[in-house]
């Protein structure tokens, strides 16, 4: 659908208002309109734009700046991305390699892989800007640049897909109408904290990045996330010392297995602190602090109560300081600079209250509250993508980062293809003989399962009588109860859910992840595996919403009928025949109550003439004239292993035939025993 460009010039802010209040003539919109609108041409916005373009949908991206990825033109301030750019893995499987590529977006174009844009393991942010620009250009994504959406509201309309249209207004007062709205604006508003004297604090967003500006200074940094440490790292060798203050204990990403926690690349200050080099970390709630500037222009730490007691117009020296009472108070030295590095929050201001886009609770208050399907809880058709959607898996998985949300965007796209275009979730159908193989292939290469562990899961829907199955990739695990309505696939005959998980007690800021004997090697103890490993759940039927809601703590899913863990592997290569594939096959066999072994044609031949039923492998292959005949070498191995019989070696003369005249007695005894068996 082409936007109604002709009407654009006639529109003024005035008409915009009347258009919103007097409902427009049904079917005739006064604004340019699209089925899908995306706010923000950052990585998530471009990812969704690509998917929509590939599907041939009517979409547009609105971008406030003149080029994609404007966040990255300023941030991170010190220009080093902490998402790894692993160019070599020793493998050629491109899906597997995405497991170790944290920067690329998903596309069919092999040139649009980030490793072609930087050689640095931790790349420069400018490379990301260049990459995103190329991504939008090469794939010819439809982006309206220099269009800042300043207001979003709803207009009820019975004919709209969701019962309403989204009405967007840009900085020029131009309105736009959309059926579905994707908010991919990231988190862009710096978190500030208000305490007495906070006006003396510099922000991460504007503080100088020139280390020379910090020569010989005492620096206090508020916050202890990656931006705080990144700032400290930059000036470590120039300051007298750096003190860093925050409320909670330090969370090291190698201990929490959460990429948003403090990364080793930034943790130089931890090293110097613990090696007694004057730098240090303190735990205090920032709300308990106050800052006064003394006559020499240096910043002194005190308490809000002291500030309140002091006369408003009193000089800084008149305010009492903690060290007046406790003379060993840790922050008794005056600071030359106090820098705030407290992260960012989602910009809620442009959304009309009718959309009900509310902040989450507690730690998640910087993100809008959404469902696990990334749709707003209150407004149908409003989806949050990218970093802003991290409330779904905050501090758990990678949904707030490119290497995670590129997959969640694809999941959202698949849900919408079904909802609005009647295209069910892609689900190739396989014969049951390929069940073990299909799972083994996925757990060894799938990048979405690996990056979005415990959030996206592969779902295997069994066909009637378990003769075959459908395979749905990377479905949002928390929406399992609604799978049938969301995907258009039927789950009536039982299902498997394939996820990847860390051990339940392995991750946490206070956990020792290097303890001796941490690795499980024994297949029998696979369920105690600590490192990321595949887990398969089996259910007779889809869990209900109630069951999903009452999951045990730490469990991504309700109690299954049976569960299997493939033992953790140092190389994350789960193709070992005995340690990985065999236990998986036994698990699947026992869930399906079937025999999933493979057989050579000779064995199938024997079964076909001595049993009324055949194992699925023979039924599917041999009986369709596609039996497997091994060569002589393999046959010999089979006989040596005892799994195949050497029929040429069977004694041709029956033992009891050698005595006397054998023919009739043999026949008669046979006769008698067979009758007995039959009764």
């Amino acid at each position, binding site marked *: 659908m082409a936007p109604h460009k002709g009407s654009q010039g006639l529109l003024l802010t005035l008409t915009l208002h009347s258009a919103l209040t007097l409902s427009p003539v049904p079917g005739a919109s006064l604004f340019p309109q699209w089925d899908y609108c995306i706010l923000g041409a950052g990585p998530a916005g471009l990812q969704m734009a690509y998917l929509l373009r590939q599907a041939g949908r009517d979409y547009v991206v609105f971008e406030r700046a003149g080029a994609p990825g404007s966040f990255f033109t300023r941030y991170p301030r010190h220009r080093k991305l902490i998402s790894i750019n692993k160019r070599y893995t020793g493998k050629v499987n491109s899906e597997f390699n995405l497991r170790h590529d944290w920067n690329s977006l998903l596309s069919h174009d092999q040139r649009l892989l980030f490793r072609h844009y930087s050689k640095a393991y931790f790349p420069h942010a400018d490379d990301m800007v260049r990459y995103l620009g190329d991504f939008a250009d090469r794939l010819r994504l439809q982006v309206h640049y220099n269009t800042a959406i300043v207001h979003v509201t709803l207009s009820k309309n019975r004919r709209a897909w969701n019962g309403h249209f989204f009405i967007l207004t840009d900085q020029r007062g131009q309105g736009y109408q959309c059926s579905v709205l994707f908010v991919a604006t990231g988190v862009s508003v710096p978190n500030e904290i208000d305490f007495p004297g906070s006006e003396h604090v510099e922000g991460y967003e504007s503080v100088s990045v020139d280390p020379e500006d910090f020569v010989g200074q005492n620096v206090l940094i508020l916050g202890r996330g990656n931006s705080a440490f990144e700032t400290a790292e930059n000036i470590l060798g120039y300051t007298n010392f750096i003190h860093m203050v925050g409320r909670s204990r330090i969370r090291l990403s190698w201990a929490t297995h959460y990429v948003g926690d403090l990364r080793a690349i930034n943790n130089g200050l931890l090293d110097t602190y613990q090696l007694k080099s004057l730098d240090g970390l303190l735990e205090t709630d920032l709300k308990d602090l106050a800052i006064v500037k003394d006559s020499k222009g240096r910043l002194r730490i005190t308490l809000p109560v002291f500030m309140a007691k002091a006369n408003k117009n009193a000089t800084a020296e008149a305010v009492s300081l903690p060290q007046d009472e406790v003379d060993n108070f840790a922050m008794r030295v005056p600071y030359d600079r106090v820098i705030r590095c407290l992260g960012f929050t989602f910009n809620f201001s442009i959304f009309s209250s009718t959309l009900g886009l509310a902040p989450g609770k507690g730690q998640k208050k910087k993100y809008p509250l959404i469902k696990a399907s990334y749709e707003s809880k209150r407004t149908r058709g409003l989806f949050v993508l990218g970093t802003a959607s991290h409330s779904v898996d905050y501090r758990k998985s990678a949904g707030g980062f490119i290497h995670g949300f590129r997959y969640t965007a694809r999941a959202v796209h698949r849900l919408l293809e079904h909802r609005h275009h009647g295209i069910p979730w892609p689900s190739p159908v396989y014969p049951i003989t390929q069940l073990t193989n299909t799972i083994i292939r996925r757990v060894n290469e799938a990048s979405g399962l690996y990056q979005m562990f415990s959030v996206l899961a592969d779902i295997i829907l069994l066909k009637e009588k378990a003769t075959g199955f459908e395979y749905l990739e990377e479905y949002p695990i928390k929406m399992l109860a609604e799978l049938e309505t969301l995907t258009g696939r039927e789950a*009536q005959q039982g299902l498997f859910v394939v996820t990847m998980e860390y051990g339940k007690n392995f991750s946490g800021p206070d956990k020792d992840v290097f303890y001796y004997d941490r690795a499980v090697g024994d297949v029998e103890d696979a369920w105690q595996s600590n490192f990321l490993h595949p887990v398969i759940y089996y259910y007779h039927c889809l869990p209900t919403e109630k069951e999903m809601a009452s999951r045990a703590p730490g469990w991504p899913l309700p109690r299954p009928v049976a569960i299997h863990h493939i033992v953790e592997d140092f190389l994350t290569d789960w*193709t070992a025949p005995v340690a990985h594939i065999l*236990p998986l096959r036994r698990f699947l066999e026992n869930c399906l109550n*079937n025999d999933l072994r493979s057989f050579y044609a*000779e064995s199938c031949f024997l079964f076909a003439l001595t049993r*009324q039923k055949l194992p699925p492998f023979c039924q599917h292959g041999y009986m369709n004239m596609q*039996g497997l005949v091994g060569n002589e070498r393999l046959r010999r*191995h089979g006989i040596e*292993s005892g799994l195949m019989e050497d029929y040429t070696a069977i004694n041709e003369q029956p033992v009891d035939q050698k005595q006397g005249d054998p023919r*009739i007695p043999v026949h008669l005894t046979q006769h008698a025993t067979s009758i007995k068996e039959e009764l």
Partner: protein
Amino acid sequence: MMSSGLNIWMYSIFFVLLCVCYKSPARNRDTLMELSLQEYFSILQTGKTSLVYFSQDVSADITVFLEELKKAAGPLHNYGISVAKVNCAEEEASKYCGKENDLTKAYLFRGNILLREFPTDTLFDVNAIIANVLFALLFNEIKYITSLEDFENIENAMKGKTNIALIYVRAIGTPEHRAVMETAFVYGTAYQFVLTTETALLEGIGAENSDIISGRLFFFHCKLVLDLAQKCQKTVLEQPLTILNIHRFLKLMDAPLLTEITEDPEKVSTVHLQLGLPLIFILSQQATYEADKKTAEIVAWRLLGKAGVTLLLKDSSDLNIPAHTNVIFKRAEEGVPVDFLVLHDVNSIISRVENNIPIQNNELAKDYEEGEMETLNLGIQDDQVVETVYRDRKRNLPLELIVELTEETFNSIIMNTSSSIILFYANWEAVSLAFLQSYVDVAIKLKGVSNILFTRVNCGDWSNVCTKQNVTEYPVIKIFKEGEKPVIYTGMLETEYLLKFIRLNGISCPVKIVTIEEAEEYLNGELYKELTSYSSVSILGIFSSNMTKEKENFIEAGNSLKGYVITGFYDEEDALILSKKYAVTLPALLLARHKEGKIDSILLPNSDAKDIVQIIKSALLEIFPEITVENLPIYLGLKKPLLILFRDGNLNYKDEIEMLHLVKQKHLETLIPCWLNLKTTPVGRGILKAYFKHLPPLPLLVLVDLHLRGQVSAFPLDQTINEKNILLWLHRVEAGLESPITTLSDEEWKPPLPAYNFLSRMDATVPYTEIAQFPTQNMLRCARTTDPQQHDKGHSEDKSAFRKEAT
């Protein structure tokens, strides 16, 4: 699994129970009422039956009793009996409260009449309470006796009137006693219930096992007995005494002993089938009706409670029943075909039933005990393909003849090669790796012979390529030829078959023949001399030049047979020459069988491509084939019994003559006559061993009926294999006069070994509180299918008791 009939029947029991309980007021239905004396008196005035315990104060041993009393309140309420505890302490003393030594008694009232007092030690648990209370209420209905004499008196009194249920329980107040009382309460006066606890009495009535450790129920059929001197017939309930078993049993005793039908046995349904018991049809005809009926009655009496017996009048029905059948056996499981039997005496019918006690079709995999799990080595490979490939892992395959394709090179190499073959495999997948070895062998054999390019794609590395090529299983083999659609190989994963496929793919299919001379060369095998060893039959379609449609169909058929058989067509002006020479009208097919040097002709009227493929395929079938591992599936596909001549070596001329003659006489049309050479197909020995337990002398003729019942019959070894004997034997088999050597198991394939039960290991280590929060999935059915009984919460307890026994 429960049959649906049984379900319906169980609901009817619930209905009876429901009716009983709805008579009573709804207040405090299932609970132990705590009453003041005042309230207690007012309850007595209502005339209801009540069990009352007067409580003075609560000591420890009384709390146990009160717990049990509380449990009994619900079930007793269903029988219209309220259960109450009266607090004596707060009120002035009643006569029941008063004395110290009365503290340990409970009282049963009807209205304000005291029926019975129970010392609390007789009411030791919930079963004892219910049993004792009902026993007291049914005092008149249930006779309690201690001697054989008592019983004989009752038996005599009931003759011609009422049937007797004599029940032995080990003691009063046991769960068995409770079950008997609850049943008696429902059945009331329909039978004369007699209860005893004396084993001596049982010996007196001739119970077989005198050292009985559990309760027994004997049903005496006295109603039929008119002569006082005659004894009542007796039937024993062989299952444990539970409500369900007793109900079932009484229901069966009520069913008519013998019914007569004329309908199709497949469609008949009786109470026996509904209760999960088999049904026996004894076939009868007018002439022998009286005698048959007598036999049937004898059988019916002996099978009473175990199976239903029906007399089927053959001549008044036009049923399709095999000749000689005299008994039909119908199982309770739905959809299982009936068995047609030839049985010669009553005992064989009885043993048939007794040995066919329905096997519980346990849906869930076998549960293994802890200890048992440890002795099983789950880590030992039991997949022959995986194991053989694993054992061969250190061998370096000579892969240099095979080009490895990558995502980058795939298109360019395939596009720039006139003909190439691709194997899609995965480097960790055993079946495709096993085949890779054969693939290499083919490449070696064709080196320098064929110009086809051998390539491979490892889907473990290049999964994108495989996905794009629609590879959903391993291995997949495709042949790409310039300007043609890729052909997928669907034959045996084996060297010779693939070789043949590649070779036959070398010529276009069907090939256009342009001259009569060429056609003759084609037919006598000269034209494709090097290929006739791969395709022993060449097919030539002959059309006159105006038969465009027919020709198109043939070309399509030839295309789809490409790689499996040589096809060609001739449509020149002079096609009539061929038509005349081979005496066929056009369009027609000529089949040149090169081995036999013979040319067959087939007419092709109005056939579409599919039909033509079918015609060609069946023309390729031999009339007396040698069965091999490779060709068995083709012949099994015809769904006929196999008549296999097992030979240790090649066919001997005489056998061939006898068999071929039978075949040509069309005596064997319902069968597939074939032979098996143990020299070339040694696995045949394994088959014979399975049939006979050890190798029988050869040659041997065996009839294998895989599609119906799985019976295997052997031609008698003491007879010579000749035409006459074979026919006679086949007739006897068909008539059911030959007992099969063995019946092939129709067992489903089950997991060879259990899996590690990680869930139970987690349960054992994760703290209990966490587990308790898991909502447990219904193991047997999905939440969506609602239980019709679910809304009636009051009876959930009874229901679960029924369930346990019924499943």
